[in-house]
């Protein structure tokens, strides 16, 4: 067993986080700015409120889970599904450190059917969103790119019963059309959300931009019969 040198806890915008050693964009952002993809929570602050149920796919070290847990309050719940072992452990640590009693963590991959999913040399249990059997769902937030088609394939009953908003990061040039089509096939209207990755008003007050010129390519989608529209955003 190896053990890296102990580092102090990170102070992030919405709570403390266990030290992070990696160099993914989320990890670098949390280390330098004390936040990650803050413009996403900016948009979602207009739709998430007390009592809401949220499912987050991909833990991102709890960067948004910490905010979502407070936003939905004691009467709401946040279910976070993280298939990778170490990020899952980090997510659990941050959930515990911040005493988030309304957060439920799931070490699993959400796909179209039950089974086993192979990820970076490890295996994860694969299940479906429908099998979570949630009493309500207001927002499905997908942080892992290119998982929408499979995820939605296992979410037929949940989407039919609850019609949650869907917020997702697109996978890129090769998969964006397939992902957007998968959402539309569920009866949703889809809008593009492309915030800059760098937030000049970041929590740490750091002026240095380590994501120069970079935009996130995300979508927000509402069921066509919900009557919800996102004015000022391009509908896809």
């Amino acid at each position, binding site marked *: 067993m190896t053990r890296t040198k102990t580092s102090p806890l990170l102070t992030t*915008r*919405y709570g403390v986080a266990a030290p992070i050693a990696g160099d993914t964009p989320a990890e670098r952002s949390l280390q330098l700015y004390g936040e990650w993809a*803050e413009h996403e*929570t*900016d*948009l*979602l*602050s*207009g*739709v998430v*409120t007390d009592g809401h149920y949220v499912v987050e796919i991909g833990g991102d070290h709890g960067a948004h889970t910490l*905010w979502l847990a*407070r*936003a939905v309050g004691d009467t709401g719940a946040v279910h976070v599904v993280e298939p990778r072992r170490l990020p899952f452990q980090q997510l659990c640590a941050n959930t515990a450190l911040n005493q988030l009693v309304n957060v439920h963590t799931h070490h699993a991959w959400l796909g179209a059917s039950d089974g086993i999913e192979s990820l970076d040399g490890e295996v994860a249990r694969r299940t479906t969103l429908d099998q979570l059997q949630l009493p309500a769902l207001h927002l499905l937030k997908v942080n892992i790119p290119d998982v929408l088609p499979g995820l939605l394939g296992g979410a037929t009953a949940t989407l039919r019963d609850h019609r949650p908003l869907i917020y997702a990061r697109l996978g890129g040039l090769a998969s964006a059309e397939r992902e957007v089509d998968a959402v539309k096939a569920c009866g949703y209207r889809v809008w593009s959300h492309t915030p800059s990755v760098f*937030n000049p*008003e970041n929590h740490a007050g750091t002026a240095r931009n380590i994501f120069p010129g970079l935009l996130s390519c995300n979508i927000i989608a*509402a069921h066509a019969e*919900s*009557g*919800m*529209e*996102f004015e000022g955003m391009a509908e896809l």
Partner: protein
Amino acid sequence: MYLSGDREHPSLRHVGSHADDFVPWLEATRDYLDAGGEDGELARWLLPSLLYQRAAFLDRDDATDHRDEAVALCQAALERCPVTERPWWRAHLLRAELARLSRQSGASRLFALRELGRDSDDDHAPALDAWIDIHLAWSGWLVGVAARARLQLAEEACTRLALADPPRAAHRRAEITLRHAALEKGDARLARLDHALALLHTTDRDVEDPSTLLLFAECAHQRAGLLAPDEAAEACSFALAHAFAAGQHPAWHIASLEMRLAIQSTHDDLSGRAHDGAIAATLRRELADARSLLRTGSA
């Protein structure tokens, strides 16, 4: 810089776009902060508004300092003021808090809004009026059902405000209805706009108040976009008359010109209307002239 409203608790209206506009006012109010009598009271009342309105034109750190000072001044005043003044300072504090949280990211702002408490904590008209500002601002940061729910809370605050000040409540309800209309389409939107106009007609006391006149103009202008050409032209005429009247007050001159130009453009675009664009061109020139008189930078 213009004062309006209640003589002892006036509202400050800044027309311009530069932080330096506030400097002489800030210097004057700070000079009188410890003075007795009406001068001292007016200085203490105006300083928070000057600070948080100026903050909109400053960089992040200076803006934060200004807003924090505005909130601190209101909190201190609220603690030591006579009981009769408490509703006014409570309203002042709520607006200073609103100005402070408005600059936060949406996610942080949500928590700050919750920390303000609830309008049911207040009973007096000035504070309820400030709560309506909060609900309206909050609804503007929300989408769909959540925005409508927040407007409903604003309406409920209006109902309580009406017990103390019916004309003011009608004015505020018209504002809320206008915001409701923006969330609707077609006939539902038209019905909301009709209702807003009907509410404004009940605010006899404020019939010459520029903000009410502009609200009339805004309602009528929005209605024009939903009506057949002949009715739309009539609505535009009504809107233009009210926007023009609002502009007779210097504090509202530029806002009036902006509104008149927008209405004139709608009118000129109506099908079957021959026009040469001369009126709109004149309004553009007048607006440019008026704006050119504003300060454009540090001396």
